[in-house]
């Protein structure tokens, strides 16, 4: 059994001590990515889990101390490292690549439903191991990365961009870990294009309607996108007083928080359902001051 105070600076030793007392704890990785730790089954150190993408449920939400995932989604990718309590460093490897494929150094993909061990090895010895469960998600939710709203029917303005994440959901396992690889396509790229590099990015090209198809681990999801031109600008000096309840009486959740776009004016009445206007990355330089941001 390794001791808790044999290696590392005092701060790290304290961290390890607390982590040893708690089942799992959080730190921040060197690159700023959230990490969660859990002791190895042989007690010689800790396995450190890091999310590959923000879509990993472990790293989502406001929980500053997310628990170590009980399991990983089939097809999910994650990073796993090991911090040994005493002695030279150890590297994490997969016992069986039928279950956890090695994608890159310290990066793994869950390839088969079941349970498999991750090994912490150094030189010619195995220091520790950790069994991790792989489950097939019940469903995959596509949510707006900014607001968290599900993608049902998405309203966009020409030129706008929107980012979505694919979140694996499992009733059998919570929290479930892993970022999913997926493919995405648009039924009409002249209206809206879709790219699938880590997150699902939509770019509205021209007014019209299109269907976005997303496939991950054999599950196909579709949703519609309606693209419209930006509304006519308000005359200089006038401001819109829309409070977010249009003529349809709904309560939209427009997320123009980070955009400088002020075209939010006058769009409220257009939104007729729970869709989310996603101008988060809009770089429109319109100087109209009539924004309300509450559409």
């Amino acid at each position: 059994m390794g001791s808790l105070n044999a290696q590392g600076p005092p701060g790290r030793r304290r961290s390890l001590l607390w982590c040893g007392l708690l089942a799992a704890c959080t730190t921040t990785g060197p690159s700023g990515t959230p990490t969660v730790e859990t002791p190895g089954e042989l007690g010689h150190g800790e396995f450190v889990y890091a999310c590959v993408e923000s879509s990993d449920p472990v790293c989502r939400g406001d929980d500053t101390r997310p628990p170590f995932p009980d399991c990983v989604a089939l097809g999910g990718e994650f990073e796993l490292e090991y911090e040994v309590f005493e002695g030279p460093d150890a590297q994490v490897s997969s016992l069986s690549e039928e279950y956890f494929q090695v994608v890159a150094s310290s990066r793994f993909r869950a390839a088969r439903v079941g349970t498999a061990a991750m090994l912490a090895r150094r030189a010619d010895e195995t220091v520790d191991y950790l069994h991790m469960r792989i489950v097939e998600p019940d469903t995959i939710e596509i949510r707006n990365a900014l607001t968290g709203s599900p993608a049902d029917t998405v309203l966009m303005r020409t030129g706008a961009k929107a980012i979505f994440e694919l979140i694996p959901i499992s009733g059998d396992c919570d929290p479930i870990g892993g970022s999913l690889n997926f493919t995405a396509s648009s039924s009409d790229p002249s209206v809206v294009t879709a790219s699938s590099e880590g997150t699902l990015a939509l770019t509205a090209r021209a007014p019209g309607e299109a269907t976005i198809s997303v496939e991950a681990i054999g599950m196909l999801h579709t949703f519609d996108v309606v693209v419209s031109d930006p509304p006519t600008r308000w005359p200089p000096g006038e401001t819109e007083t829309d409070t977010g309840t249009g003529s349809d009486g709904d309560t939209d959740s427009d997320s123009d928080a980070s955009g400088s776009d002020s075209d939010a004016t006058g769009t409220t009445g257009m939104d007729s359902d729970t869709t989310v206007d996603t101008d988060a990355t809009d770089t429109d330089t319109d100087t109209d001051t009539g924004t309300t941001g509450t559409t």
Partner: protein
Amino acid sequence: MRKHAQRSLALLALTLLACTPTYSSLDVYPLDGDGEVVGNTIELEEGHAMVVHVRPVSTGYPSYEDFDIVSLESRSPTIAFAEGAREIDEFVIGGVSVGTARITVSVNGRDEDELVVEVVAQQESAP
């Protein structure tokens, strides 16, 4: 003079032989994990790892000590994984894929015995 030297060498050889344990069998038992050990046979599910204690047993005096080096080598690493753990005479055995693997056990660099590892399918993922 030459005869005396030969007698001395023979006596030295006999003394050394008398101080070396004579291999008899293996004492194998599980320390951690869900696998089962019966004699020299280990059964565990694919994907699973366990720790076993493997210690040679001598036929008589002297017995094996901690400084006697035991090492394991899987002859079918695609089926079973075997590697030393941190403690003396402790080894991590892993089921890589379904099948039967033999693991050579050597003591002080000499092959003495073998373990049989039966890797079975996981129950929850079995068809």
